[in-house]
């Protein structure tokens, strides 16, 4: 974390999203039964109370975020500028690879292919040597498939 001038930071953004989530949830909870004649709270009462609390806490977090002026996602200490850029790219590519894995697994219905592509892609993103990446991807996808489907009898079908 580093300090910088007054600006929107992660805490304020998360707090703001919390407010939006609370408002949305409260609007859905208001359509649920609130309570019964004998005083028993209905299905909507607990979510409504929690939503209101979340809105208030979100507002406080937004205020704290503005007041603190701390950049939570800035380059960590000890990490060079080049490495920080590479790390950000690696994180984004990891997220993309995981999304691609789910789509590929669902589309092909074949765990081994999808997992092999995921492991190979991630290993290359993390700059593991190409040959080692291939070996790891093959070993993990086949090994995990064999262990789960043959030993544990878990069918690794997406659909």
């Amino acid at each position, binding site marked *: 974390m580093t300090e910088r001038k007054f600006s929107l930071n992660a*805490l304020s953004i998360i707090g703001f999203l919390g407010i939006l989530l609370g408002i949305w949830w409260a609007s859905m909870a208001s359509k*649920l039964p609130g309570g019964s004649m004998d005083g028993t*709270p209905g299905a909507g009462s607990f979510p409504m109370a929690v939503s209101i609390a*979340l809105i208030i806490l979100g507002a406080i977090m937004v205020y704290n975020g503005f007041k603190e002026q701390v950049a939570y996602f800035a380059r960590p200490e*000890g990490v060079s500028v080049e490495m920080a850029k590479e*790390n950000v790219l*690696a994180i984004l590519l990891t997220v993309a690879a995981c999304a691609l894995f789910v789509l590929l697994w669902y589309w092909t219905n074949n765990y081994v292919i999808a997992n092999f592509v995921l492991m190979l892609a991630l290993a290359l993103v*993390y700059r593991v040597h190409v040959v080692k990446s291939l070996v790891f991807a093959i070993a993990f996808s086949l090994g995990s498939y064999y262990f789960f489907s043959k030993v544990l009898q878990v069918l690794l079908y997406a659909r």
Partner: protein
Amino acid sequence: MQMLFGAFAEILTTNLFFYSLLGVVAGIVVGALPGLSATMAVAILTPLTFWLEPAQGMAVLLGVYNSAIWAGGITAILINTPGTPASIAQTFDGYHFVKNGKIGLALSVNTIYSVVGGLFGSLVLTIAAFPVARFALRFGPPEMFALALFGLTMMISVSGTKLINGLFAGFLGLLISTIGLDPMHGMPRFTFGNVNLLSGIPFVVALVGMFGVGEVLYQLSERRARNRSFAGDADTSGIIKNLGRWLPTREELRESNLAVFLSCVISTIIGAIPGAGGDIASIVCWQQAKQMSKKPEEFGKGSYTGLAVASLANNGVIGGAMTTMMTLGIPGDGVTAILIGSLMMYGMQPGPRLFVEQAPFVYRIMALMFVGYLMILVLGMLTARASAVILKLKQEYVWLAVIGFCILGSFAINNSVFDVIVMFIAGLVGFIFKKADIPLGPFILALLLGPIAESNYRRSLALSQGDMSIFFTRPITVVLLVLAILSLVWQPVRDLMKRRREAKAA
């Protein structure tokens, strides 16, 4: 007593011994690698042990839990980096032993006192669990609601320096816990027409995502160099060759006796408090030992007693945490929160009824705790050199393996790709929260305790026909609610008093 001895005999003569050993060995690898915590390992392994018998699955998970906490001390000592968060206090003195050429002694102190703390905690579990469970059988809906609230507020108050962030995480978890069927009337809530959400957000899946994938993304963001081993720049080859003296002297043992005994008691009590774990216990015990020591100047510079109590305390909490988890259904720390999910996966509900309906299983767990620590004692003394080798593993391979096992574990619970998607989303949320200094513990605990709190709150008001005084006229409920409020206001009040003192001094 007979059932306990029967459980011991069963473990030593059946494959439970093998599963416990498997867990202990897995825990050594996990605990010795910085960045892989016991919480993460138990979270990932929980769905993978789904196909085992409950006792076998718990044998693996308890073995991992106990040995990962002990093994975290190995890297704390060897390279001044805690293997798990609970090993932080071991870095205060442990690394100085290495610099002074007493590596063997440091590693054996870690092993011996971790086992002492663990066995003491297991003894407390064995003695106290059934009486506490009998007492807890008297709890009605108001007491259970107050207990859930107490557990949540305790976790929030100890989870970080900013109370608001903890409260936000807690209430967000409570909000998410309302997804699914209404606990009293069974009507779908916040499911958006998706049948996969009728049973709510799967707790174990969210846990695996946050502590598995989330942690990998976080470590990726902090990466300083490519293809770096966990040892970093430390020279592990020298460690392997020059271990020096192994056993403590009589004088060292005598000097630390009182501090060790007090640390056993303190750490077990801290473990029993919901939310407080090994990191808090080991720091508290270390500071306590320093205050009562005749040589306080040695603490932080290679004190034998300092390392002994720090090693003892982080394993000593486990017995207390397990007692709270099993008797009340409230987790004593992060790992026991996951173990609750494991027991629920096996169709058991932790709490006082477990002691009535599953007494033989409870005794097996107690026996497994003792057997696990005896395994750690033997393996710990034999595998010190091997631990230094584990540190040569490259980070990238561990990250790949963790992501792979997270996918498999989250899919395997319900054979559902939807769970894998939830796991990835939870991982992303976990990463963002960790970077933004928002604690994960309250979120996870709220996900677990939310349904308990809501259903008992509504049942209480159904019993009293809407009269709120039901929460203020039952002694146990009042005590728990007061403790819950105190746990939240204690930190801000203490900070305010400190600021006033500093202002007066200025």
